[in-house]
């Protein structure tokens, strides 16, 4: 049975020339897990939002064609009239909460639909159980972790009785465990309870395995197909499908398990283990201890980083990565121990610069050029702005307003504005959180250039594949302590949670598809 039918939809945002959706025709059957993929600006978020009427009712613009959800036309029914058939969860549910207590938040949508109080009580209990969040019922929504927030937001959207769930990049901001919890909950909804889940996502290494169908969006067009076919067309699929493309495997595997079956016949030589050379020690932390929010977040950590070295800091949320970075940057005074850069205490913004989480939010000027100029003016530097913009690949956007750029591009501008301090040590806190593959690529290139210039690079990340691609050394943290420190092929291979897909398929020492393909002489 067709549940959602998108017929000949063309849509343009107000004051833009290009169509965000051009003559899109999609039919989605009831039940199943549908994955929406495509680059930033390809229209996947727009397409998702047409399915509950947020486009065009919330965005304005020009719309033609028709979208029918469970038989209701979205032009006649604005989102609030569709709340009982389709639920929507935005990318950052933290800012979507209306009430303070989890239980009240779950009831909010039902109150709007005038559900009887006794019925509300019943449904709240039920949804708390289905999503396994009943222990959170009395908590304040502000105190939840990323994965918990996401599950509460899903519950809060489903309570009016909707059987279709739309999610915009639900796992892109979560640590591996949080992402796992959310995906398990979604799988339960689809497999056990027959819900239809449609989800737009950049980070495919986990979700690909769950998909029953996939929709590929590109330049405003969209078509539905089998996940295997669609993901293999994608330049930025999960590592196993990228490898499949390099080696010409068809159909490409979506999961590590499937890839392992195919890899049985592949003969690989011993991995070529090149260790990144490190210069003289520059950034040195000597048994530092630091508290955050009243509890000890970093316990007696010692770390020495040399010039030209790129270090990835891995660990779960709350492992102490951010606090350690802040201590290294001289922003947070350690309660014990000492940090030094080139023998002196670090000067924030001069010798050591930290690019915080969600750095794209620090922009305040009315053009990209003046944003970088603001940094130069503050440090009384007369260097050329365009050099820094070229470095991050944003040279062409110098005269644009930062708010007209995508969030990934804004992040690159913010990084350029921080890098313009010429600080010889650059620390980045989760720079790839929620980034699309293109921006990730640009950022990676940029980090390699800085390392070659002899700068010290330390970045904290959840993204194991990113660490495998870029890091010359991996430091693993847990409970405020360093539990492993060494070259990536050692540290990542020894971990269960933090091992990249290639290691899981081919074993110790294999980190990236590129490395495997090169060893096999593929293209």
């Amino acid at each position, binding site marked *: 049975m067709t549940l959602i039918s998108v017929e*000949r939809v063309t849509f343009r945002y107000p004051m833009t020339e290009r169509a965000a959706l051009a003559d899109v025709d999609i039919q989605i059957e009831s039940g199943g897990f549908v994955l929406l993929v495509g680059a930033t600006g390809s229209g996947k978020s727009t397409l998702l939002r047409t399915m509950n009427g947020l486009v*065009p*009712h*919330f965005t*304005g613009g*020009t*719309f033609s064609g028709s979208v029918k959800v469970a038989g209701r036309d979205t032009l006649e029914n604005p989102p609030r009239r569709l709340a009982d058939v389709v639920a929507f969860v935005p990318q950052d549910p933290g800012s979507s909460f209306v009430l303070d207590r989890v239980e009240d938040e779950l009831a909010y949508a039902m109150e709007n639909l005038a559900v009887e109080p006794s019925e509300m009580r019943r449904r709240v209990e039920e949804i708390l159980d289905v999503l396994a969040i009943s222990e959170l019922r009395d908590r304040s929504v502000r105190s939840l972790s990323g994965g918990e927030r996401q599950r509460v937001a899903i519950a809060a959207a489903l309570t009016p009785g909707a059987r279709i769930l739309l999610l915009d990049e639900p796992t892109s901001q979560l640590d591996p465990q949080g992402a796992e919890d959310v995906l398990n909950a979604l799988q339960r909804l689809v497999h056990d309870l027959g819900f239809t889940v449609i989800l737009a996502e950049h980070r495919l290494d986990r979700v690909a395995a769950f998909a029953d169908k996939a929709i590929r969006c590109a330049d405003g067009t969209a078509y539905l197909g089998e996940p295997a076919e669609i993901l293999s067309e994608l330049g930025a699929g999960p590592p196993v499908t990228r490898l499949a493309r390099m080696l010409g495997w068809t159909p490409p595997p979506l999961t590590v398990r499937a890839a392992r079956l195919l890899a049985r016949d592949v003969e690989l030589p011993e991995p070529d283990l090149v260790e990144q050379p490190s210069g003289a020690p520059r950034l040195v932390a000597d048994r530092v201890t630091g508290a955050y929010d009243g509890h000890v977040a970093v316990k007696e950590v010692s770390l020495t980083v040399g010039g030209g070295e790129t270090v990835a800091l891995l660990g779960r949320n709350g492992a102490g990565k951010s606090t350690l970075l802040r201590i290294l940057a001289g922003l947070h005074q350690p309660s014990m121990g000492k940090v030094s850069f080139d023998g002196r205490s670090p000067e924030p913004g001069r010798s050591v610069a930290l690019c915080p989480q969600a750095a794209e939010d620090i922009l*305040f000027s*009315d053009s990209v050029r003046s944003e970088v100029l603001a940094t130069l003016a503050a440090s009384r530097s007369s260097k050329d702005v365009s050099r820094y913009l070229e470095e991050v690949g944003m040279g062409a956007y110098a005269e644009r307003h930062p*708010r007209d750029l995508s969030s990934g591009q804004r992040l690159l501008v913010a990084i350029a504005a921080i890098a313009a301090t010429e600080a010889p040590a650059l620390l980045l806190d989760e720079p790839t959180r929620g980034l699309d593959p293109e921006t990730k690529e640009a950022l990676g290139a940029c980090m390699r250039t800085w390392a070659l210039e002899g700068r010290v690079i330390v970045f904290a990340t959840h993204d194991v594949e990113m660490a495998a691609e870029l890091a010359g050394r991996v430091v693993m943290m847990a409970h405020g302590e360093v539990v492993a420190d060494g070259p990536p092929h050692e540290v990542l291979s020894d971990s269960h949670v933090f091992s990249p897909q290639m290691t899981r398929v081919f074993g110790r020492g294999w980190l990236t598809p590129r490395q495997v393909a090169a060893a096999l002489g593929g293209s």
Partner: protein
Amino acid sequence: MKKRSRFQFGVLVVANLLGLAAFIWPFLLPAAVGGDEAHGVDAPWIVLGLLVCLGSLLFLELGRGGMGPKTVALIGVLGAAMVALRLPGFVAGFSAMFIVVLLAGNAFGASFGFVLGATGMFASGLFLGGLGPWLPFQMVAVGWVGMGAGLIPRGKSWGLRLGLLAGYGFVVGFLFGAIMNLWSWPYLAGSAAVGWHPELGAIANLRNYATFYMAYSLTWDVFRAFGNVALVLILGRPVLSALDRAALRMYVEIKEPKAA
């Protein structure tokens, strides 16, 4: 749509006039109570009740048929900014909270400005523990600051717009103090010579209040006036351009071309 907004404007005007009456009753009341001490004590409570009813009426009218999720969300976010800015407290009479009301009121219009001012003040009262009989007065007064800012034209020239806003901020700095001290004056000054003496009549009471204001409030209000001007000049342009962009996104326009 147009008809309703004109009706709304009418309600706004009437309710505000009555609100004004709640502030200036000490000048109007003498004739009515004839200097009876006991009724003089009851009167402020009656007035307070009146003010609460009027504030409610205003909210109801503005919220009739729904403020809509966008307005509710925006007021929530901007109200949060007011709460946050009120936290560091008043430097003499100045609080950075006013800049939000001034600029957002100007960007989003008079009725939004009123609701934002009143809601933000109420929220900060709840958050910081400032609930009391003074709260309705504060809500209405800050609401007026926002409403006035919304009446200042949003022309193309930045110089004119910022100049007018800064001038308005300066005047409002004093007016706000003058009107806010009115509610407590009958109690604070009590039987003092500069206090409220129902038997004296409006003119003499006005003179008493003026003396009281000069002694008690003026110095604080100078800080508020100059603080407002400084913040409008420093933050006006960048913040207003951000708010104007948001204001554009508030309005939804759907065009539906004939499918080919």
